[in-house]
């Protein structure tokens, strides 16, 4: 329990990840799901950078006689820089697909997008029966 209180930043990252995952699962609008996806991604980056933190550390820039043994770990930062770029590329592409989806179907609600096939079949069947009876 005291270890959990010491690692409060990891716990915060896990909490944010679960909030993002809840949004992606439960919300019906696609743009809300994309916001949830972004929250999940930033929570993972937060966890990763907190792993490399050193108590009373300084930024890894060797200027003015900075002491290399007090610097925080630079490797997670280099990896997460690439991660942030990939996250923004995925968001941009997903938003372009959202615009195309709206132009094609006129709605952004996932339930309606998935229900349209069954409803169209039921309407077609009801229309055919009416024609057969008339």
């Amino acid at each position, binding site marked *: 329990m005291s270890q959990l209180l010491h690692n*409060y*930043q990891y716990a*915060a990252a896990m*909490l*944010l990840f679960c*909030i*993002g995952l*809840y*949004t992606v699962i439960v*919300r*019906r*609008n696609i*743009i*809300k799901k*994309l*916001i*949830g996806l*972004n*929250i999940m991604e*930033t929570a993972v*980056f*937060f966890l990763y*950078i*907190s792993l490399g*933190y050193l108590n009373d*550390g*300084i*930024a*890894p*820039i060797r200027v003015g006689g900075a002491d290399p043994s007090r610097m*925080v770990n630079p490797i997670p*930062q280099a990896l*997460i*820089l690439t991660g*942030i*770029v990939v996250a*923004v590329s995925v*968001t*941009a592409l997903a*938003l372009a697909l*959202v*615009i195309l989806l*709206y132009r094609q179907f006129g709605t*952004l*609600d996932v339930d309606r997008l998935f229900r349209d096939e069954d409803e169209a079949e039921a309407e077609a069947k009801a229309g055919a029966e009416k024609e057969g009876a008339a």
Partner: protein
Amino acid sequence: MGTTLNLIFIVLMVATALLAVFARDLLAAVIIFSVYSLIMALMWQRLQAPDLALTEAAVGAGVTTVLFVVAIFKTRRREEEEEE
């Protein structure tokens, strides 16, 4: 002092994330998401990562938010659909 500031930032981050998730109006959700991005950029500075703070500030508040706003404007949806 250091721990208190970190805790304040973390509480603000969780609060804005929850508000962005539960906002009905999509435009309000996106603006709250840009505030979340800003507080995350400040958090990177607290973790002694200045390159990441620059990148997150430029990308989160500059590019991602505006792309979201353009997508909302194009799809002409101001309100989210009503839940069941």
